[in-house]
């Protein structure tokens, strides 16, 4: 789990201009980094990071992405 979380955070930090990511992109990056990682586990890790306040959801209403709290667009734009 911790390994997955780390991989997620690393991936989210790696974006140059991008700060919000689709789950699928996170999933792909994590699977590359942590061979054998399962989609469901990655989702759980994301949820955990959300609950810890590391990640935030970014929702257009129709679509949801994940981003690091404090990076890129925030609610007070």
């Amino acid at each position, binding site marked *: 789990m911790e390994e997955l979380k780390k991989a997620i955070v690393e991936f989210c930090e790696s974006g140059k201009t991008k700060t919000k990511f*689709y*789950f699928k992109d996170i999933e792909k990056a994590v699977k590359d980094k942590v061979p054998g990682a399962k989609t469901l586990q990655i*989702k759980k890790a994301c949820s955990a990071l*959300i609950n810890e306040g590391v990640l935030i*959801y*970014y*929702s257009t*209403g129709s679509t*949801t992405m994940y981003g690091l709290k404090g990076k890129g667009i925030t*609610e007070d734009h």
Partner: protein
Amino acid sequence: FKIKHDIPELEQLESGPWPSFVADAKRYALRRRKLGQDNLLINQDVVEDLLGQVELSYVHGETHWKHGGIVGVIGYGGGVIGRYSDVPEQFPGVAHFHTIRVAQVPSKFYDTDFLRGLCDLWEYRGSGLLNMHGSTGDIILLGTFTDQLEPIFQELAQVLDVDLGGSGSNLRTPECCVGKARCQYALYDTQEMCYEMTMHYQDELHRPAFPYKFKFKFDGCPNGCVASIARADLSFIGTWRDDIRIDQDAVQGYINGEFPPGGGSHKGRDWGKFDIYEEVINRCPTGCMSLEGGKLVIDNANCTRCMHCINTMPRALKPGKDTGVSLLFGAKAPILEGAQMSVLVIPFMKAEPPYDNIKEIIDKTFEWWMEEGKNRERLGETIQRVGLQRFCDVLGVPPAPQMVKEPRSNPYIFWKEEDVPGGFKRDIND
């Protein structure tokens, strides 16, 4: 009573017989003033400011909202739609105007205790404006500030015993028709199934990991009163596989004019005496009905269960007793590739608690779509992109002519290497 802004355009909507949302909003604005800011956590002028901004929109012919992506309640990826005014200086009451989607009761029956509780909560912590209901079926609480989101969420859950609905790349709040609660046509228990599926897939509903939104809707029969075939990624529609039950005496009753055809649906106009040929037999799309020796005969093998005869003579005809659901996949609105209706993939399945057979199909669908679907690609688009037969493979459902209107007319069959004797590799010198 004059509200704080001039709203001549809106006031044009106070006349006319249909209920006027402007009249309603104005009187409620007055109530909020009377309540006073001390009894309200949101600006007491919120309704007046909303009306003012809408008035401005009418004048400009343009909306004055901006999208706001970050807001939500902790741990949920859906249920809140962030919204900000683009003219907050003029209308500070609606500077923030987020909505909260509250899960409706399946089939939307309510006791007044609950509704009153909801009203009190929403008046105190929100604008007091709401939709009964949104297009997906949720109760939409329209307009509050960011800091109220979390308290509202917890008060809903802890006091009113109700959760948020869906938004974003989630399972959306499932919706069902009135079904067995008040409809003789219901071919399976829409409420029960809707409730069970909602509970079973709570995590999918609140924590987004899908490529895009996903909707379930439950229609009790092919009449489609919850429009599942047009609006759900997975449409459950009741059907049967045995014979239509006929009460020949009641058929005579209709012929003799004892019962109104269509359950009285055409009472307002004189359409003449009921004519069973004109109104039923010749309208049957498959031509599988006839009157033989005064008795109505249905060739059930050729009936497509369109419901017309049953709808028209509800006292005489009833669907069969061996009932279940058809599963159709992939409906959506036109973004991006044009609207789609759901496609019949599983013609018949029994639908009985705990619905393990159906959950298995759903699980396979989710798993495959999460793997195969592109970002912002609805299930129906994924199916269209890879081909219906691939989706059948995934579900383990054998291809059947029931899935298509007609077989393909182009011959471009993508044969797989293993289908062709000798495979694809060959020596040029052969």
